[in-house]
């Protein structure tokens, strides 16, 4: 860095630091206020709305959430489809990525073109809906897994990583008489575990947040994952059906706290894995950007 000691430079630096601190505060405050709102008892919550700290803490909202069968089931479904998709997509995508690193594979360019085209042109929502309906995935939790078996961005990411593995590794295995699948399983996968872990976390966060697929394809409320229930509660204001018969006098006051509590429940897993993804995603985004 060029060291500049003039007064103007110092002034700029101070202003810049203040601005960035403000940016950080503005980014974090909404999360903080959600946490505080979820912890406030009603009597305190109605008094004011700008909270830096909760004046009194209560876990009523979380107790309410834990008592709701539907939310707990939704949480279970979310974990289930997330784990399922992480392994299913990683498996399919990394196998394909390995295949595409074979530069002299006959038909390779044609297949790659086939994939690139899908980034620019698609059938649109309705033909897609009719297709999913035709293959019988509507109202099945598998609709959140099978169509998402490959992701072009992840494919490119993994492919460029596998492509950077020195080919000597593979050759020695060929000498030992290993087939391509053996090589993939016992050499390629262990060597690319870091990129697979990163992509896995990407998939997990995306699926955890996925309310779009259930909105379009799952009409059966009993099968909704947490993200979709969250939408119903936050956007459509459907708190009542969380626990039929529970919404009497005293409990109505908790509505906003309950909403914010559900938000916290849904973003805590993301914040927990965030430090792990953060380490890799910058590199990932760069590779993706350069390739595309």
């Amino acid at each position, binding site marked *: 860095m060029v060291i500049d000691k003039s007064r103007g430079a110092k002034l700029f630096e101070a202003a810049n630091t203040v601005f960035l601190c403000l940016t950080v505060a503005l980014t974090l405050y909404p999360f903080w206020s959600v946490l505080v709102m979820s912890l406030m008892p009603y009597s305190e919550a109605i008094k004011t709305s700008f909270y830096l700290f909760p004046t009194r803490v209560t876990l009523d909202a979380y107790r309410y959430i834990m008592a709701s069968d539907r939310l707990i089931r939704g949480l279970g479904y979310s974990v289930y489809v997330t784990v399922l998709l992480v392994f299913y997509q990683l498996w399919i995508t990394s196998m394909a990525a390995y295949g595409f690193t074979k530069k002299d594979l006959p038909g390779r360019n044609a297949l790659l073109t086939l994939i690139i085209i899908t980034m620019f042109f698609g059938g649109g929502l309705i033909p897609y809906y009719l297709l999913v309906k035709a293959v019988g995935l509507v109202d099945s939790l598998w609709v959140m897994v099978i169509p998402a078996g490959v992701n072009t961005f992840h494919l490119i990411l993994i492919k460029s990583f596998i492509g950077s593995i020195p080919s000597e590794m593979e050759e020695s295995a060929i000498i030992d008489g290993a087939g391509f699948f053996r090589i993939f399983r016992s050499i390629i996968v262990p060597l690319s575990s870091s990129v697979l872990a990163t992509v896995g976390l990407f998939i997990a966060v995306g699926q955890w947040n996925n309310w779009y697929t259930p909105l379009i394809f799952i009409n059966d409320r009993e099968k909704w994952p947490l993200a979709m229930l969250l939408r119903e509660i936050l956007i459509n204001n459907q708190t009542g059906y969380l626990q039929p018969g529970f919404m009497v006098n005293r409990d109505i006051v908790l509505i906003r706290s309950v909403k914010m509590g559900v938000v916290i429940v849904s973003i805590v897993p*993301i914040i927990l894995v965030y430090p792990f993804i953060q380490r890799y995603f910058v590199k990932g985004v760069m590779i993706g950007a350069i390739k595309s």
Partner: protein
Amino acid sequence: MLDYLPAVRTGQQDPNRDRSSRIKDASVPVTSVKSRRGTAADGTIRSTPPSDRRSRRLSRRQTLKKILRYRVIYLMLAPAILTYIVFNYLPMYGVTIAFKDYWLSRGILGSPWIGLYNFKVILGLDKFWQVFRNTIVINALKLAFVFPAPVVLAILMNEVRSRKFKRTVQTVVYLPHFISWVVISGIVLALLSVDNGLVNTILESLGGRKIPFMIRSEFFRPILIITEIWKEAGWGTIIYLAVLCTIPQELYEAAVIDGAGRFGRTLHVTLPALTAIIATMLILTVGNMTIGNFDQVLNLYNPMVYDVGDIIDTYIYRVGLGEGKFGMGTAVGLFQNTINLVLLLAANNLAKRVTGSSLY
């Protein structure tokens, strides 16, 4: 079957034969062995034009051998390719619904063709033009206000000298990208609520009156812009910061010697370094002018603000899927997709001419 078996075996042994040649000539990298073989085949074609057919048959046999050798690879590609074909290409065939009087009971093939009727209907609808205009206007506003935000933020972050501080800022501003629009809308609704929301409380304490922000048309587009900046500006800096890292320090030092101040350095060194990447991002943004942010709008809007907030994507969802007007919905989607493709190619062409860098 009997012809097939030996072929399989040679296919299997082929990599071994390859390997022996590689071992003999260890200094030559793998790929060049293959390519050298390829040029040798080309060489025979060129040196002996009369035996053209023979060499072509030879290269075809080589390809066939390769296919056999790679048969496991094809098997490994199959699930992915199949997924693409079923979930990306079959729906493309479904686009024909746009030209049909689609009946659910008759299926795509059984429904009668009606030519451009669906298009005539939608192009005659005021509502269609309203959502079309909304999409373009919202995207143009985002281009003006959201697009520059990460560029400015990246330049400011790049000026920070303390590494630790820079990294902290980065960690925090990337976070909202991973939060879904449902959650963000939920937070926005709570903060802007008339009923004890933060913003209205502040307004009231300043002597103002409460404003029902979410149902007032004049506030809807600003809300879209502000929330998008809040969610994505930080994440957007990644790509610019990465480019900024590659600027050699000598350029800055030379600029100082030439008498450039802090602002001059930004203007004459930093910004020119960013031109190519800004152009690329601009192409993508302009190319996607007809595609709105479905997730954002669907979670923030309500019937009171449809006049300014309803976009093509939400319209297709509500009318096409919600009301079951499949043919119309598909036609709107096809219309949008086609314009988008044309725009993308045009923007790319323009960028190629202006900056010399393009996407494709």
